[in-house]
Protein backbone atom coordinates (compact mmCIF):
# COMPACT_ATOMS: atom_id res chain seq x y z
CA UNK A 1 0.00 0.00 0.00
CA UNK A 2 2.69 2.41 0.97
CA UNK A 3 4.50 1.59 -2.23
CA UNK A 4 1.89 3.62 -4.07
CA UNK A 5 2.30 6.78 -2.06
CA UNK A 6 4.60 8.29 -4.60
CA UNK A 7 5.50 11.85 -3.91
CA UNK A 8 3.32 12.25 -0.81
CA UNK A 9 5.01 14.14 1.98
CA UNK A 10 7.46 11.92 3.78
CA UNK A 11 8.01 10.22 7.08
CA UNK A 12 4.82 8.74 8.63
CA UNK A 13 5.12 5.33 7.01
CA UNK A 14 8.29 3.35 6.48
CA UNK A 15 9.57 2.43 3.05
CA UNK A 16 8.15 5.41 1.23
CA UNK A 17 11.29 7.51 0.74
CA UNK A 18 12.83 4.65 -1.25
CA UNK A 19 9.89 4.71 -3.66
CA UNK A 20 10.32 8.42 -4.18
CA UNK A 21 14.03 7.89 -4.64
CA UNK A 22 13.34 5.11 -7.15
CA UNK A 23 11.13 7.45 -9.13
CA UNK A 24 13.79 10.17 -9.03
CA UNK A 25 16.43 7.74 -10.25
CA UNK A 26 14.20 6.77 -13.15
CA UNK A 27 13.61 10.42 -13.96
CA UNK A 28 17.33 11.13 -13.83
CA UNK A 29 17.95 8.36 -16.38
CA UNK A 30 15.68 10.05 -18.93
CA UNK A 31 17.64 12.37 -21.25
CA UNK A 32 14.39 14.12 -22.16
CA UNK A 33 13.84 15.11 -18.53
CA UNK A 34 17.35 16.56 -18.39
CA UNK A 35 17.12 18.51 -21.64
CA UNK A 36 13.64 19.85 -20.91
CA UNK A 37 14.42 20.58 -17.28
CA UNK A 38 17.69 22.37 -17.96
CA UNK A 39 16.17 24.57 -20.69
CA UNK A 40 13.21 25.49 -18.48
CA UNK A 41 15.47 26.19 -15.51
CA UNK A 42 17.67 28.43 -17.66
CA UNK A 43 14.63 30.27 -19.00
CA UNK A 44 13.36 30.79 -15.45
CA UNK A 45 16.72 32.15 -14.29
CA UNK A 46 16.76 34.53 -17.27
CA UNK A 47 13.25 35.66 -16.41
CA UNK A 48 13.95 36.21 -12.71
CA UNK A 49 17.24 38.03 -13.22
CA UNK A 50 16.16 39.83 -16.40
CA UNK A 51 17.07 43.33 -15.15
CA UNK A 52 20.65 42.16 -14.42
CA UNK A 53 21.16 40.15 -17.59
CA UNK A 54 19.48 42.17 -20.33
CA UNK A 55 21.90 44.66 -21.91
CA UNK A 56 19.20 47.33 -22.40
CA UNK A 57 15.82 48.35 -21.08
CA UNK A 58 13.29 46.43 -23.22
CA UNK A 59 11.32 49.63 -23.90
CA UNK A 60 14.27 51.95 -24.68
CA UNK A 61 13.96 53.18 -28.24
CA UNK A 62 17.15 53.97 -30.10
CA UNK A 63 15.80 55.68 -33.18
CA UNK A 64 19.27 55.98 -34.70
CA UNK A 65 19.60 52.20 -34.76
CA UNK A 66 16.32 50.93 -36.13
CA UNK A 67 16.21 47.36 -37.49
CA UNK A 68 19.92 46.89 -36.79
CA UNK A 69 21.20 43.44 -37.81
CA UNK A 70 22.54 40.95 -35.23
CA UNK A 71 26.17 41.25 -34.12
CA UNK A 72 27.50 38.47 -36.38
CA UNK A 73 26.24 40.23 -39.50
CA UNK A 74 28.85 42.38 -41.35
CA UNK A 75 27.44 45.69 -40.08
CA UNK A 76 26.13 44.43 -36.73
CA UNK A 77 27.32 45.90 -33.46
CA UNK A 78 27.95 44.17 -30.14
CA UNK A 79 25.79 46.77 -28.40
CA UNK A 80 22.74 44.96 -29.79
CA UNK A 81 23.68 41.25 -29.86
CA UNK A 82 20.52 40.20 -31.67
CA UNK A 83 19.91 43.49 -33.44
CA UNK A 84 17.03 45.90 -32.90
CA UNK A 85 13.39 46.01 -33.95
CA UNK A 86 11.47 48.63 -35.94
CA UNK A 87 11.55 51.11 -33.06
CA UNK A 88 15.20 50.57 -32.26
CA UNK A 89 14.57 48.42 -29.21
CA UNK A 90 17.11 45.74 -28.30
CA UNK A 91 15.75 42.38 -29.47
CA UNK A 92 17.79 40.35 -26.98
CA UNK A 93 16.59 42.40 -24.02
CA UNK A 94 13.00 42.16 -25.18
CA UNK A 95 13.32 38.39 -25.58
CA UNK A 96 14.70 38.07 -22.03
CA UNK A 97 11.97 40.24 -20.55
CA UNK A 98 9.37 38.42 -22.60
CA UNK A 99 10.27 35.22 -20.78
CA UNK A 100 8.88 36.80 -17.60
CA UNK A 101 5.29 37.02 -18.80
CA UNK A 102 5.48 33.72 -20.68
CA UNK A 103 6.76 31.71 -17.73
CA UNK A 104 4.56 33.46 -15.17
CA UNK A 105 1.49 32.63 -17.22
CA UNK A 106 2.78 29.11 -17.88
CA UNK A 107 3.39 28.20 -14.24
CA UNK A 108 0.35 29.85 -12.66
CA UNK A 109 -2.09 28.81 -15.38
CA UNK A 110 -0.83 25.22 -15.34
CA UNK A 111 -1.20 25.12 -11.53
CA UNK A 112 -4.69 26.56 -11.77
CA UNK A 113 -5.93 24.19 -14.43
CA UNK A 114 -4.32 21.26 -12.63
CA UNK A 115 -5.98 22.17 -9.32
CA UNK A 116 -9.41 22.75 -10.85
CA UNK A 117 -9.34 19.86 -13.31
CA UNK A 118 -7.79 17.27 -11.00
CA UNK A 119 -10.03 18.14 -8.06
CA UNK A 120 -13.13 17.65 -10.17
CA UNK A 121 -11.64 14.50 -11.71
CA UNK A 122 -10.88 13.08 -8.27
CA UNK A 123 -14.36 13.85 -6.96
CA UNK A 124 -16.11 12.51 -10.07
CA UNK A 125 -13.91 9.47 -10.53
CA UNK A 126 -13.95 8.49 -6.86
CA UNK A 127 -17.62 8.98 -6.06
CA UNK A 128 -19.02 8.14 -9.49
CA UNK A 129 -22.76 8.38 -9.98
CA UNK A 130 -24.51 11.70 -10.42
CA UNK A 131 -21.46 13.79 -9.46
CA UNK A 132 -19.39 12.06 -12.09
CA UNK A 133 -22.05 12.38 -14.78
CA UNK A 134 -22.57 16.05 -14.04
CA UNK A 135 -18.85 16.83 -14.20
CA UNK A 136 -18.51 14.79 -17.35
CA UNK A 137 -21.36 16.64 -18.99
CA UNK A 138 -19.79 19.99 -18.21
CA UNK A 139 -16.47 18.76 -19.66
CA UNK A 140 -18.22 17.64 -22.85
CA UNK A 141 -20.05 20.95 -23.06
CA UNK A 142 -16.81 22.88 -22.60
CA UNK A 143 -15.01 20.81 -25.17
CA UNK A 144 -17.56 21.57 -27.87
CA UNK A 145 -16.05 25.05 -28.06
CA UNK A 146 -12.89 25.46 -30.10
CA UNK A 147 -10.38 26.48 -27.37
CA UNK A 148 -9.25 29.73 -28.98
CA UNK A 149 -12.85 30.83 -29.52
CA UNK A 150 -13.62 30.17 -25.87
CA UNK A 151 -10.58 32.07 -24.65
CA UNK A 152 -11.41 35.03 -26.92
CA UNK A 153 -14.95 35.14 -25.55
CA UNK A 154 -13.62 34.94 -22.00
CA UNK A 155 -11.17 37.76 -22.61
CA UNK A 156 -13.94 39.95 -24.00
CA UNK A 157 -15.88 39.27 -20.82
CA UNK A 158 -12.95 39.55 -18.41
CA UNK A 159 -10.94 42.36 -20.02
CA UNK A 160 -7.21 42.24 -20.75
CA UNK A 161 -4.15 41.81 -18.52
CA UNK A 162 -1.80 39.01 -17.47
CA UNK A 163 -4.11 37.88 -14.65
CA UNK A 164 -7.03 37.69 -17.08
CA UNK A 165 -4.98 35.62 -19.52
CA UNK A 166 -4.11 33.20 -16.71
CA UNK A 167 -7.75 32.97 -15.73
CA UNK A 168 -8.79 32.39 -19.34
CA UNK A 169 -6.26 29.57 -19.78
CA UNK A 170 -7.42 27.93 -16.53
CA UNK A 171 -11.07 28.21 -17.50
CA UNK A 172 -10.40 26.74 -20.94
CA UNK A 173 -7.87 24.02 -20.18
CA UNK A 174 -9.05 22.47 -16.89
CA UNK A 175 -11.06 20.02 -19.02
CA UNK A 176 -7.84 18.50 -20.34
CA UNK A 177 -6.76 17.55 -16.80
CA UNK A 178 -10.25 16.56 -15.78
CA UNK A 179 -10.81 14.07 -18.58
CA UNK A 180 -7.42 12.34 -18.44
CA UNK A 181 -7.02 12.27 -14.65
CA UNK A 182 -10.57 10.99 -14.21
CA UNK A 183 -9.83 7.97 -16.39
CA UNK A 184 -6.82 7.20 -14.20
CA UNK A 185 -8.82 7.67 -10.99
CA UNK A 186 -11.47 5.25 -12.29
CA UNK A 187 -8.80 2.58 -12.69
CA UNK A 188 -7.09 3.32 -9.38
CA UNK A 189 -10.33 3.31 -7.43
CA UNK A 190 -10.81 -0.39 -8.14
CA UNK A 191 -7.33 -1.41 -7.06
CA UNK A 192 -6.80 -3.56 -3.96
CA UNK A 193 -5.06 -0.97 -1.83
CA UNK A 194 -7.98 1.43 -2.20
CA UNK A 195 -10.44 -1.30 -1.27
CA UNK A 196 -8.22 -2.20 1.68
CA UNK A 197 -8.23 1.40 2.85
CA UNK A 198 -12.01 1.52 2.58
CA UNK A 199 -12.35 -1.77 4.50
CA UNK A 200 -10.07 -0.41 7.20
CA UNK A 201 -12.67 2.29 7.67
CA UNK A 202 -10.67 5.25 6.37
CA UNK A 203 -12.84 8.23 5.57
CA UNK A 204 -13.51 9.06 1.92
CA UNK A 205 -11.36 12.14 2.25
CA UNK A 206 -8.43 10.22 3.60
CA UNK A 207 -8.77 7.45 1.00
CA UNK A 208 -8.99 9.98 -1.78
CA UNK A 209 -6.08 12.14 -0.68
CA UNK A 210 -3.73 9.53 0.76
CA UNK A 211 -4.41 6.52 -1.46
CA UNK A 212 -5.90 7.60 -4.80
CA UNK A 213 -4.25 10.99 -5.32
CA UNK A 214 -0.63 9.79 -4.92
CA UNK A 215 -1.25 7.11 -7.55
CA UNK A 216 -2.29 9.66 -10.18
CA UNK A 217 0.41 12.22 -9.36
CA UNK A 218 2.85 11.00 -12.06
CA UNK A 219 0.15 11.57 -14.66
CA UNK A 220 -0.56 15.01 -13.23
CA UNK A 221 3.11 15.98 -13.44
CA UNK A 222 3.16 14.97 -17.11
CA UNK A 223 0.02 16.94 -17.87
CA UNK A 224 1.31 19.92 -15.88
CA UNK A 225 4.44 20.06 -17.96
CA UNK A 226 2.55 19.84 -21.25
CA UNK A 227 0.03 22.41 -20.05
CA UNK A 228 2.84 24.88 -19.42
CA UNK A 229 3.69 24.64 -23.10
CA UNK A 230 0.06 25.13 -24.08
CA UNK A 231 -0.22 28.17 -21.82
CA UNK A 232 2.90 29.72 -23.36
CA UNK A 233 1.39 29.32 -26.82
CA UNK A 234 -1.98 30.73 -25.75
CA UNK A 235 -0.34 33.74 -24.11
CA UNK A 236 1.80 34.38 -27.18
CA UNK A 237 -1.29 34.07 -29.37
CA UNK A 238 -3.36 36.47 -27.32
CA UNK A 239 -0.62 39.05 -27.02
CA UNK A 240 0.01 38.67 -30.74
CA UNK A 241 -3.61 39.63 -31.40
CA UNK A 242 -3.15 42.44 -28.90
CA UNK A 243 -5.54 41.18 -26.24
CA UNK A 244 -3.12 40.08 -23.56
CA UNK A 245 -1.21 42.88 -21.86
CA UNK A 246 -0.71 46.63 -22.16
CA UNK A 247 2.17 47.64 -24.50
CA UNK A 248 4.39 48.67 -21.59
CA UNK A 249 4.94 44.99 -20.74
CA UNK A 250 7.09 43.09 -23.20
CA UNK A 251 5.86 39.72 -24.43
CA UNK A 252 6.99 37.34 -27.15
CA UNK A 253 3.60 37.66 -28.82
CA UNK A 254 4.02 41.44 -29.08
CA UNK A 255 7.48 40.96 -30.54
CA UNK A 256 5.89 38.72 -33.17
CA UNK A 257 3.27 41.34 -33.95
CA UNK A 258 5.93 44.07 -34.25
CA UNK A 259 8.14 41.86 -36.39
CA UNK A 260 5.19 41.12 -38.64
CA UNK A 261 4.77 44.84 -39.33
CA UNK A 262 8.43 45.09 -40.36
CA UNK A 263 8.40 41.84 -42.26
CA UNK A 264 8.99 43.41 -45.69
CA UNK A 265 12.15 45.26 -44.65
CA UNK A 266 13.56 42.82 -42.10
CA UNK A 267 12.08 39.31 -42.14
CA UNK A 268 14.77 38.05 -39.75
CA UNK A 269 13.57 40.05 -36.73
CA UNK A 270 10.81 37.45 -36.56
CA UNK A 271 13.21 34.62 -35.80
CA UNK A 272 14.11 35.58 -32.21
CA UNK A 273 10.59 35.48 -30.69
CA UNK A 274 9.73 32.42 -32.80
CA UNK A 275 12.82 30.62 -31.51
CA UNK A 276 12.07 31.64 -27.90
CA UNK A 277 8.56 30.21 -28.09
CA UNK A 278 9.56 26.99 -29.86
CA UNK A 279 12.48 26.23 -27.54
CA UNK A 280 10.49 26.84 -24.34
CA UNK A 281 7.46 24.89 -25.53
CA UNK A 282 9.70 22.06 -26.75
CA UNK A 283 11.35 21.96 -23.33
CA UNK A 284 7.93 21.62 -21.67
CA UNK A 285 6.89 18.85 -24.07
CA UNK A 286 10.18 16.95 -23.64
CA UNK A 287 9.93 17.20 -19.86
CA UNK A 288 6.34 15.93 -19.97
CA UNK A 289 7.22 13.06 -22.30
CA UNK A 290 10.23 12.14 -20.20
CA UNK A 291 8.20 12.05 -16.98
CA UNK A 292 5.58 9.90 -18.66
CA UNK A 293 8.09 7.42 -20.01
CA UNK A 294 9.99 7.28 -16.71
CA UNK A 295 7.02 6.82 -14.41
CA UNK A 296 4.44 5.00 -16.52
CA UNK A 297 6.09 1.55 -16.78
CA UNK A 298 6.23 1.41 -13.00
CA UNK A 299 2.50 1.90 -12.83
CA UNK A 300 1.90 -0.78 -15.41
CA UNK A 301 4.17 -3.24 -13.61
CA UNK A 302 2.24 -2.74 -10.41
CA UNK A 303 -1.07 -3.45 -12.07
CA UNK A 304 0.21 -6.66 -13.55
Amino acid at each position, binding site marked *: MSAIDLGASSDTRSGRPSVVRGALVRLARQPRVWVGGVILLAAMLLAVFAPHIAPHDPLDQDLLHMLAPPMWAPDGSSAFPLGTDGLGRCVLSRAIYGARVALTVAVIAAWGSMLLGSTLALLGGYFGGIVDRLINYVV*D*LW*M*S*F*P*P*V*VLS*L*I*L*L*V*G*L*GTGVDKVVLAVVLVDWTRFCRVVRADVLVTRRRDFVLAAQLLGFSHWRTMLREVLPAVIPLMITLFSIEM*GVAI*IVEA*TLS*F*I*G*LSVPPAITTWGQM*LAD*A*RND*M*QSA*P*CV*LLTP*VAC*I*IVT*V*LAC*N*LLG*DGVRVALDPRLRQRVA
Partner: protein
Amino acid sequence: MFQIISAIVVRRVLLAIPTLLLLSLVVFFVLRILPVDPLGMLLPASATPADAAALKQQLGFDKPIPQQFVIWLWAAINGNLGTSLNFRQPVSHLMMAALPATMELSLVGLLLALLISIPGGMLAFMLYQRKREAVADLAVALMQSIPSFLWSLLLIAAFGVRWPILPFSGRVGPEVALPGLTGFALIDLLLTGQFQGWISALTHLVLPGLALALGLAPLVIRVLRSSLIEAANEPYVEVARLRGLSESRILWRHILKNAALPTITMIGVQFGFLFSAALLVEMIFGYPGIGNLMVQAVKGNDLPLIQGIALIFCVLMLAITVVIDVLYAVLNPRMRKL
Protein backbone atom coordinates in the same frame (compact mmCIF):
# COMPACT_ATOMS: atom_id res chain seq x y z
CA MET B 1 -26.74 0.53 -43.17
CA PHE B 2 -28.98 3.47 -43.92
CA GLN B 3 -31.07 2.72 -40.84
CA ILE B 4 -28.02 2.72 -38.59
CA ILE B 5 -26.80 5.99 -40.01
CA SER B 6 -30.15 7.71 -39.61
CA ALA B 7 -30.45 6.33 -36.07
CA ILE B 8 -27.07 7.81 -35.18
CA VAL B 9 -27.94 11.13 -36.77
CA VAL B 10 -31.30 11.39 -35.01
CA ARG B 11 -29.87 10.45 -31.63
CA ARG B 12 -26.95 12.85 -31.99
CA VAL B 13 -29.08 15.75 -33.13
CA LEU B 14 -31.50 15.25 -30.25
CA LEU B 15 -28.57 15.21 -27.81
CA ALA B 16 -27.14 18.31 -29.44
CA ILE B 17 -30.17 20.52 -28.77
CA PRO B 18 -29.75 20.91 -24.98
CA THR B 19 -25.99 21.26 -25.49
CA LEU B 20 -26.49 24.14 -27.91
CA LEU B 21 -28.95 25.85 -25.58
CA LEU B 22 -26.57 25.61 -22.64
CA LEU B 23 -23.62 26.78 -24.71
CA SER B 24 -25.42 29.83 -25.97
CA LEU B 25 -26.46 30.56 -22.40
CA VAL B 26 -22.83 30.40 -21.26
CA VAL B 27 -21.68 32.67 -24.09
CA PHE B 28 -24.48 35.13 -23.47
CA PHE B 29 -23.76 35.52 -19.77
CA VAL B 30 -19.99 35.67 -20.14
CA LEU B 31 -20.41 38.49 -22.63
CA ARG B 32 -22.80 40.39 -20.39
CA ILE B 33 -20.35 40.66 -17.49
CA LEU B 34 -18.01 42.67 -19.64
CA PRO B 35 -16.49 45.81 -18.17
CA VAL B 36 -16.42 47.94 -21.34
CA ASP B 37 -19.42 49.59 -22.89
CA PRO B 38 -20.10 48.06 -26.31
CA LEU B 39 -22.11 51.12 -27.29
CA GLY B 40 -19.30 53.60 -26.75
CA MET B 41 -18.12 53.36 -30.32
CA LEU B 42 -21.55 53.77 -31.85
CA LEU B 43 -22.19 57.18 -30.33
CA PRO B 44 -20.76 60.45 -31.62
CA ALA B 45 -18.55 62.42 -29.23
CA SER B 46 -21.30 64.98 -28.70
CA ALA B 47 -23.85 62.41 -27.52
CA THR B 48 -25.73 63.16 -24.31
CA PRO B 49 -26.60 60.54 -21.68
CA ALA B 50 -30.13 60.69 -23.05
CA ASP B 51 -28.87 59.70 -26.50
CA ALA B 52 -27.01 56.77 -24.96
CA ALA B 53 -30.11 55.63 -23.10
CA ALA B 54 -32.18 55.91 -26.28
CA LEU B 55 -29.68 53.81 -28.22
CA LYS B 56 -29.54 51.28 -25.41
CA GLN B 57 -33.30 50.99 -25.50
CA GLN B 58 -33.35 50.72 -29.27
CA LEU B 59 -30.84 47.84 -29.19
CA GLY B 60 -32.51 46.18 -26.22
CA PHE B 61 -29.50 46.45 -23.88
CA ASP B 62 -31.61 48.13 -21.16
CA LYS B 63 -33.65 45.03 -20.38
CA PRO B 64 -32.66 42.51 -17.67
CA ILE B 65 -30.14 39.94 -18.92
CA PRO B 66 -32.43 36.85 -18.74
CA GLN B 67 -35.01 38.71 -20.79
CA GLN B 68 -32.36 39.73 -23.31
CA PHE B 69 -31.36 36.09 -23.61
CA VAL B 70 -34.91 34.91 -24.28
CA ILE B 71 -35.41 37.60 -26.91
CA TRP B 72 -32.09 36.75 -28.57
CA LEU B 73 -32.79 33.02 -28.45
CA TRP B 74 -36.26 33.36 -29.95
CA ALA B 75 -34.89 35.48 -32.78
CA ALA B 76 -31.99 33.05 -33.29
CA ILE B 77 -34.35 30.10 -33.61
CA ASN B 78 -36.14 32.06 -36.29
CA GLY B 79 -32.88 32.60 -38.12
CA ASN B 80 -32.30 36.18 -37.02
CA LEU B 81 -28.99 36.59 -35.18
CA GLY B 82 -29.25 40.34 -34.87
CA THR B 83 -27.28 43.15 -36.46
CA SER B 84 -23.55 43.65 -36.09
CA LEU B 85 -22.79 46.82 -34.14
CA ASN B 86 -19.69 47.69 -36.16
CA PHE B 87 -20.51 46.44 -39.64
CA ARG B 88 -24.17 47.58 -39.48
CA GLN B 89 -25.16 44.43 -41.35
CA PRO B 90 -27.16 41.37 -40.31
CA VAL B 91 -24.90 38.92 -38.48
CA SER B 92 -26.20 36.02 -40.55
CA HIS B 93 -25.19 37.77 -43.81
CA LEU B 94 -21.68 38.40 -42.56
CA MET B 95 -21.32 34.82 -41.43
CA MET B 96 -22.78 33.27 -44.57
CA ALA B 97 -20.23 35.20 -46.60
CA ALA B 98 -17.32 34.08 -44.40
CA LEU B 99 -18.29 30.49 -43.61
CA PRO B 100 -17.51 28.87 -47.00
CA ALA B 101 -14.09 30.52 -47.00
CA THR B 102 -13.28 29.01 -43.62
CA MET B 103 -14.56 25.61 -44.65
CA GLU B 104 -12.54 25.70 -47.84
CA LEU B 105 -9.39 26.60 -45.94
CA SER B 106 -10.02 23.96 -43.26
CA LEU B 107 -10.60 21.24 -45.83
CA VAL B 108 -7.45 22.15 -47.74
CA GLY B 109 -5.55 22.20 -44.42
CA LEU B 110 -6.95 18.80 -43.49
CA LEU B 111 -6.07 17.33 -46.87
CA LEU B 112 -2.50 18.65 -46.69
CA ALA B 113 -2.23 17.41 -43.09
CA LEU B 114 -3.17 13.90 -44.25
CA LEU B 115 -0.68 14.10 -47.11
CA ILE B 116 2.03 14.94 -44.57
CA SER B 117 1.02 12.71 -41.70
CA ILE B 118 0.16 9.43 -43.39
CA PRO B 119 3.68 9.00 -44.81
CA GLY B 120 5.04 10.60 -41.63
CA GLY B 121 3.19 8.17 -39.37
CA MET B 122 4.32 5.20 -41.44
CA LEU B 123 7.89 6.44 -41.38
CA ALA B 124 7.71 6.81 -37.60
CA PHE B 125 6.31 3.27 -37.40
CA MET B 126 9.14 1.86 -39.52
CA LEU B 127 11.71 3.71 -37.41
CA TYR B 128 10.07 2.16 -34.35
CA GLN B 129 10.41 -1.32 -35.85
CA ARG B 130 14.10 -0.68 -36.48
CA LYS B 131 14.62 0.59 -32.90
CA ARG B 132 15.25 4.12 -34.10
CA GLU B 133 12.23 5.69 -32.46
CA ALA B 134 14.26 8.35 -30.65
CA VAL B 135 14.76 10.21 -33.94
CA ALA B 136 11.07 10.12 -34.78
CA ASP B 137 10.08 11.07 -31.22
CA LEU B 138 12.30 14.13 -31.28
CA ALA B 139 11.05 15.22 -34.69
CA VAL B 140 7.42 14.88 -33.62
CA ALA B 141 8.08 16.67 -30.31
CA LEU B 142 9.69 19.52 -32.23
CA MET B 143 6.80 19.76 -34.69
CA GLN B 144 4.36 19.71 -31.83
CA SER B 145 6.04 22.75 -30.32
CA ILE B 146 5.35 24.89 -33.39
CA PRO B 147 1.72 26.03 -33.49
CA SER B 148 0.04 26.98 -36.76
CA PHE B 149 0.27 30.70 -36.18
CA LEU B 150 4.05 30.50 -35.90
CA TRP B 151 4.14 28.40 -39.06
CA SER B 152 2.08 31.11 -40.78
CA LEU B 153 4.58 33.79 -39.87
CA LEU B 154 7.55 31.61 -40.81
CA LEU B 155 6.00 30.60 -44.13
CA ILE B 156 5.20 34.22 -44.99
CA ALA B 157 8.71 35.31 -44.08
CA ALA B 158 10.22 32.53 -46.19
CA PHE B 159 7.97 32.10 -49.25
CA GLY B 160 6.25 35.47 -49.27
CA VAL B 161 9.04 37.90 -48.43
CA ARG B 162 12.49 36.29 -48.60
CA TRP B 163 11.73 34.27 -51.75
CA PRO B 164 8.50 35.87 -53.02
CA ILE B 165 7.01 32.93 -54.89
CA LEU B 166 3.58 32.59 -53.29
CA PRO B 167 0.88 35.14 -52.40
CA PHE B 168 0.02 35.54 -48.71
CA SER B 169 -2.89 37.94 -48.51
CA GLY B 170 -6.58 37.37 -49.18
CA ARG B 171 -8.36 34.65 -51.13
CA VAL B 172 -7.57 35.65 -54.71
CA GLY B 173 -5.49 38.23 -56.52
CA PRO B 174 -6.98 41.74 -56.99
CA GLU B 175 -7.65 41.06 -60.70
CA VAL B 176 -10.04 38.18 -59.98
CA ALA B 177 -13.67 38.74 -59.05
CA LEU B 178 -15.30 35.93 -57.09
CA PRO B 179 -18.57 34.89 -58.73
CA GLY B 180 -20.18 34.01 -55.38
CA LEU B 181 -22.28 30.99 -56.35
CA THR B 182 -21.44 28.51 -53.61
CA GLY B 183 -18.94 30.68 -51.80
CA PHE B 184 -16.18 28.11 -52.33
CA ALA B 185 -13.67 29.95 -54.50
CA LEU B 186 -12.20 26.81 -56.06
CA ILE B 187 -15.62 25.51 -57.12
CA ASP B 188 -17.07 28.84 -58.26
CA LEU B 189 -14.13 29.79 -60.42
CA LEU B 190 -14.08 26.35 -62.01
CA LEU B 191 -17.81 26.49 -62.74
CA THR B 192 -17.53 29.89 -64.39
CA GLY B 193 -14.49 28.73 -66.35
CA GLN B 194 -12.06 31.34 -65.03
CA PHE B 195 -8.96 29.23 -65.18
CA GLN B 196 -6.54 32.06 -64.31
CA GLY B 197 -8.67 32.93 -61.31
CA TRP B 198 -8.76 29.31 -60.23
CA ILE B 199 -4.96 29.15 -60.23
CA SER B 200 -4.88 32.38 -58.26
CA ALA B 201 -7.29 31.01 -55.64
CA LEU B 202 -5.29 27.81 -55.42
CA THR B 203 -1.95 29.55 -54.90
CA HIS B 204 -3.56 31.76 -52.25
CA LEU B 205 -4.58 28.63 -50.35
CA VAL B 206 -1.13 27.01 -50.34
CA LEU B 207 0.57 28.92 -47.53
CA PRO B 208 -2.38 29.19 -45.09
CA GLY B 209 -3.34 25.59 -45.83
CA LEU B 210 0.23 24.46 -45.21
CA ALA B 211 0.39 26.41 -41.94
CA LEU B 212 -2.77 24.66 -40.73
CA ALA B 213 -1.54 21.27 -41.91
CA LEU B 214 1.87 21.56 -40.24
CA GLY B 215 0.18 22.39 -36.94
CA LEU B 216 -2.20 19.43 -37.18
CA ALA B 217 0.21 16.85 -38.63
CA PRO B 218 2.22 15.93 -35.48
CA LEU B 219 -0.98 15.06 -33.62
CA VAL B 220 -2.09 12.76 -36.44
CA ILE B 221 1.38 11.25 -36.79
CA ARG B 222 1.44 10.38 -33.09
CA VAL B 223 -1.92 8.62 -33.13
CA LEU B 224 -1.27 6.89 -36.45
CA ARG B 225 2.07 5.61 -35.19
CA SER B 226 0.67 4.16 -31.96
CA SER B 227 -2.34 2.65 -33.78
CA LEU B 228 0.03 1.07 -36.30
CA ILE B 229 2.11 -0.40 -33.49
CA GLU B 230 -1.03 -1.72 -31.82
CA ALA B 231 -2.44 -3.19 -35.04
CA ALA B 232 0.91 -4.82 -35.85
CA ASN B 233 0.67 -6.86 -32.63
CA GLU B 234 -2.76 -8.28 -33.46
CA PRO B 235 -3.05 -12.03 -34.14
CA TYR B 236 -4.34 -11.51 -37.70
CA VAL B 237 -1.00 -9.99 -38.67
CA GLU B 238 0.76 -13.15 -37.55
CA VAL B 239 -1.81 -15.22 -39.45
CA ALA B 240 -1.22 -13.16 -42.59
CA ARG B 241 2.52 -13.66 -42.17
CA LEU B 242 2.04 -17.43 -41.80
CA ARG B 243 -0.05 -17.40 -44.96
CA GLY B 244 3.04 -16.12 -46.67
CA LEU B 245 1.87 -12.61 -47.57
CA SER B 246 4.61 -10.11 -48.28
CA GLU B 247 5.47 -7.61 -45.54
CA SER B 248 4.40 -4.66 -47.66
CA ARG B 249 1.05 -6.26 -48.37
CA ILE B 250 0.56 -6.93 -44.67
CA LEU B 251 1.40 -3.32 -43.90
CA TRP B 252 -0.89 -1.79 -46.52
CA ARG B 253 -3.82 -4.18 -46.53
CA HIS B 254 -3.99 -5.26 -42.90
CA ILE B 255 -2.15 -3.00 -40.50
CA LEU B 256 -2.85 0.38 -42.10
CA LYS B 257 -6.50 -0.41 -42.71
CA ASN B 258 -7.06 -1.27 -39.06
CA ALA B 259 -5.02 1.64 -37.78
CA ALA B 260 -7.16 4.06 -39.79
CA LEU B 261 -10.07 3.89 -37.38
CA PRO B 262 -8.56 5.43 -34.24
CA THR B 263 -6.82 7.96 -36.47
CA ILE B 264 -10.09 9.13 -37.99
CA THR B 265 -11.66 9.46 -34.56
CA MET B 266 -8.67 11.49 -33.45
CA ILE B 267 -8.97 13.83 -36.42
CA GLY B 268 -12.63 14.36 -35.53
CA VAL B 269 -11.70 15.24 -31.97
CA GLN B 270 -9.06 17.63 -33.25
CA PHE B 271 -11.45 19.67 -35.39
CA GLY B 272 -11.76 22.12 -32.53
CA PHE B 273 -8.03 22.47 -32.78
CA LEU B 274 -8.28 22.96 -36.52
CA PHE B 275 -10.85 25.75 -36.17
CA SER B 276 -8.80 27.41 -33.44
CA ALA B 277 -5.74 27.30 -35.63
CA ALA B 278 -7.71 28.48 -38.66
CA LEU B 279 -8.86 31.53 -36.70
CA LEU B 280 -5.32 32.82 -36.27
CA VAL B 281 -4.13 31.68 -39.66
CA GLU B 282 -6.98 33.59 -41.29
CA MET B 283 -6.13 36.69 -39.32
CA ILE B 284 -2.45 36.54 -40.27
CA PHE B 285 -3.16 35.87 -43.95
CA GLY B 286 -5.94 38.47 -44.16
CA TYR B 287 -8.17 35.63 -45.32
CA PRO B 288 -11.85 36.67 -45.17
CA GLY B 289 -13.22 33.77 -43.10
CA ILE B 290 -15.10 33.30 -39.85
CA GLY B 291 -11.94 33.44 -37.76
CA ASN B 292 -10.93 36.80 -39.14
CA LEU B 293 -14.47 38.05 -38.53
CA MET B 294 -14.25 36.79 -34.94
CA VAL B 295 -11.00 38.63 -34.26
CA GLN B 296 -12.50 41.86 -35.63
CA ALA B 297 -15.66 41.33 -33.58
CA VAL B 298 -13.65 40.73 -30.41
CA LYS B 299 -11.51 43.80 -30.94
CA GLY B 300 -14.60 45.96 -31.52
CA ASN B 301 -16.67 44.42 -28.68
CA ASP B 302 -19.30 43.59 -31.27
CA LEU B 303 -21.57 41.49 -29.04
CA PRO B 304 -24.18 40.23 -31.55
CA LEU B 305 -21.45 39.19 -33.96
CA ILE B 306 -19.42 37.39 -31.26
CA GLN B 307 -22.53 35.54 -30.10
CA GLY B 308 -23.43 34.52 -33.62
CA ILE B 309 -19.94 33.27 -34.44
CA ALA B 310 -19.66 31.37 -31.16
CA LEU B 311 -22.96 29.70 -31.97
CA ILE B 312 -21.83 28.79 -35.49
CA PHE B 313 -18.60 27.28 -34.16
CA CYS B 314 -20.59 25.14 -31.72
CA VAL B 315 -22.97 23.99 -34.45
CA LEU B 316 -20.00 23.11 -36.67
CA MET B 317 -18.31 21.14 -33.88
CA LEU B 318 -21.50 19.21 -33.15
CA ALA B 319 -22.06 18.54 -36.84
CA ILE B 320 -18.54 17.14 -37.12
CA THR B 321 -19.17 14.80 -34.19
CA VAL B 322 -22.16 13.42 -36.10
CA VAL B 323 -20.10 12.97 -39.27
CA ILE B 324 -17.34 11.19 -37.35
CA ASP B 325 -19.84 8.90 -35.63
CA VAL B 326 -21.34 7.96 -38.98
CA LEU B 327 -17.92 7.41 -40.56
CA TYR B 328 -16.96 5.25 -37.61
CA ALA B 329 -20.06 3.12 -38.04
CA VAL B 330 -19.48 2.77 -41.77
CA LEU B 331 -15.82 1.84 -41.41
CA ASN B 332 -15.99 -0.38 -38.34
CA PRO B 333 -17.81 -3.65 -39.05
CA ARG B 334 -18.18 -4.27 -35.30
CA MET B 335 -20.37 -1.19 -34.99
CA ARG B 336 -22.83 -2.15 -37.70
CA LYS B 337 -25.05 -4.30 -35.54
CA LEU B 338 -27.01 -2.04 -33.27
